[in-house]
């Protein structure tokens, strides 16, 4: 009898080229995604070394980090941003890499474009010079965020040097209460396992809550694996995954589809697979969650207050004190009622169609508070175009949200969408680090898209269940 294996074991085994002298694996990367910020130096290094792009058909590019979301015509007003887009365009043209460029109608955040195009598939290995590459694990792919030297490695050899991680199975069982979302699940997991709890691990998410999640909800959770320290997060592929992929531009068709589905099913972890660690959560215990500090683990339920550092475990106290100083929110402040200045709805965590649909359903006919600047940034041109057709964009505009073009935008403030001074932003993104949203003194509170909308409407952090009458 062969030993039971996890999905990670199976994918690793299939993609192992050889063991390197230092003991790491030379791992084949089936699909390589690139964007304008972390790739230019890599193309430069490949050229300088006299190498070439080995499999240009296995690298896909788009532009997301620096693109303006209001003024979309080139040249961009920021000459540095303009130069970066042109550099990527040139590199793709010279090497034959497919580029989902701005005029194609397929541009967007790289982690939204891959799945949308059907490029992200189960049982594959994926790498991208962006830590949120873990998103693609929602399809049962093993997906890594990498640095620029590794982008070079993948361009030149379609492989990278990496050690095999351990696997921690995270079960969430039961039904989420109405008004509680995938974002709350991942914030809850990180709150309990810590921002460094996942170092050395891949997170395999499972349990009935995940079984019932849509593909897009699974993406939200896998997206933030890295915020818990795990470079890789994944969910075993199932019918939900296959249905999502059916008919997408890069999905197999005809007899190839059936063969692919059979292979995909076989890549899921065996029932009796052995894990290095197992952690269990109950869905019923999770409530709408917001972060109050400067790491994603500094999170509380909407009915809780900012903790006193002295009440926390010793190891967390210094960072808590630092967070309280940066956030200018004293310990003991209830989460509900914190005044916000900006509401940001978007990012690779929560910029997909279902995120916007869910919010639109509840805000129809309501208005953004006059004290709040609220922006919606669809994750891709594809999402934007469907949202327009469905009337979702109009609902947002009528409510007083600015409806923007696709990109990373205010998740990291590399384009003109930045916080100003110490503005406080209710954000559906993934990081609340100091200065993350473009202003060194800016403040970020992470939450689900509907909680962002509730804050936008009321001008303060609010329980979306009360604001929208969700029972």
């Amino acid at each position, binding site marked *: 009898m062969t030993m039971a294996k996890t999905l990670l074991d199976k994918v690793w085994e299939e993609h192992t080229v050889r063991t*390197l002298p230092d003991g*790491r694996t030379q791992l084949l990367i089936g699909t390589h995604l690139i964007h304008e910020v972390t790739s230019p130096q890599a193309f430069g290094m490949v050229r300088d070394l006299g190498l070439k792009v080995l499999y240009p058909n296995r690298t896909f590019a788009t532009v997301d980090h620096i693109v303006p979301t209001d003024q979309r015509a080139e040249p961009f007003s920021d000459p540095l941003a303009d130069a970066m887009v042109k550099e990527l365009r040139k590199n793709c043209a010279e090497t034959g890499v497919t580029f989902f460029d701005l005029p194609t109608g397929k541009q967007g955040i790289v982690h939204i474009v891959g799945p949308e195009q059907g490029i992200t598939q189960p049982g594959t290995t994926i790498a991208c010079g962006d830590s949120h590459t873990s998103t693609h694990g929602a399809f049962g792919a093993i997906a890594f965020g990498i640095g620029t*030297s590794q982008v070079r490695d993948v361009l030149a*050899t379609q492989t990278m040097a990496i050690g095999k991680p351990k696997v921690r199975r995270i079960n969430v069982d039961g039904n989420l209460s109405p008004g509680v979302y995938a974002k709350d699940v991942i914030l809850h997991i990180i709150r309990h396992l810590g921002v460094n709890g996942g170092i050395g691990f891949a997170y395999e998410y499972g349990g009935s809550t995940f079984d019932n999640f849509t593909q897009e909800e699974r993406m939200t959770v896998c997206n933030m694996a*890295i915020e818990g320290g795990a470079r890789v997060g994944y969910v075993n592929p199932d019918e939900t995954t296959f249905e999502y992929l059916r008919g997408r531009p890069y999905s197999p068709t005809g007899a190839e589809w059936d063969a692919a589905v059979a292979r995909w099913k076989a890549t899921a972890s065996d029932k009796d697979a052995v894990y290095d660690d197992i952690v269990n959560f109950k869905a019923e215990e999770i409530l709408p969650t917001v972060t109050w500090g400067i790491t994603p683990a500094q999170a509380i339920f909407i009915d809780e207050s900012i903790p006193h550092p002295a009440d926390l475990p010793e190891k967390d106290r*210094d960072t808590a004190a630092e967070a309280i100083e940066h956030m200018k929110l004293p310990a003991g402040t209830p989460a509900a009622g914190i005044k916000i200045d900006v509401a940001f709805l978007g990012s690779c965590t929560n910029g997909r169609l279902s995120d916007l649909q869910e919010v639109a359903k509840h805000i129809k006919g309501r208005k953004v508070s006059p004290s709040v600047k609220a922006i919606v940034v669809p994750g891709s041109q594809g999402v934007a175009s469907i949202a327009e057709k469905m009337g979702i964009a109009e609902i947002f505009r009528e409510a007083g949200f600015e409806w923007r073009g696709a990109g990373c935008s205010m998740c990291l403030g590399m384009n003109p969408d930045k916080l100003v001074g110490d503005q406080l932003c209710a954000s559906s993104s993934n990081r609340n680090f100091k200065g993350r949203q*473009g202003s060194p003194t800016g403040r970020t509170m992470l939450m689900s898209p509907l909680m962002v909308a509730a804050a936008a409407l009321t001008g303060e952090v609010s329980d979306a269940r009360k604001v929208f009458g969700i029972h």
Partner: protein
Amino acid sequence: MALEKITQITGRGVFVPGDDIDTDRIIPARFMKCVTFDGLGEFAFSDAKVAEKAAGRLHPLDDARFNGASILISGSNFGCGSSREHAPQALYRYGFRAIIAESFAEIFFGNSTTLGIPCVKMSKQDIADLAALIEKTPTVQVTLDLTENKVTVDDVDFSATFSLPGHAREPLMNGRWDSIADLVDGIEDVKSRVAAIPYLAGK
């Protein structure tokens, strides 16, 4: 590709206190609008320096006593967050040649190793003791010995053990820390693997 064999690093140290120092803190995103890594060094910890000044404090990298430090010392989960190689690139260009911390985020660790920057783990207590020594005498020479897995300080009775996983230690010591040469050596094997995997062979 012949790379330097990194067996020992000696230099002055600087302690940047704090846990979970993320790569946005090390190099804010707006400085990544560039197509080369040149010139990133001057922006290391840029916003953190300004914030400390605004709070009436001095960031260690702004403290003239620690000018010229080449060994960075910090807390746990150093380099978490974004995968940006710009972070270790900025630290290297600033002049850092080794980092000592309680623990490191994984992507940062790999990116740094590829640049030949050893990231070694030391206990909280040893880090506090080392930081106190440097605070008292900023000019002391700190030595990391990869052969012995030890940190020592010249003319002072200080010696602490660090840990560095073998997959980083061996390549650093053998001058193979940038894996590109090894990966290129395997290209024929890559091609046969590609041919054996249906989703790759089919295209």
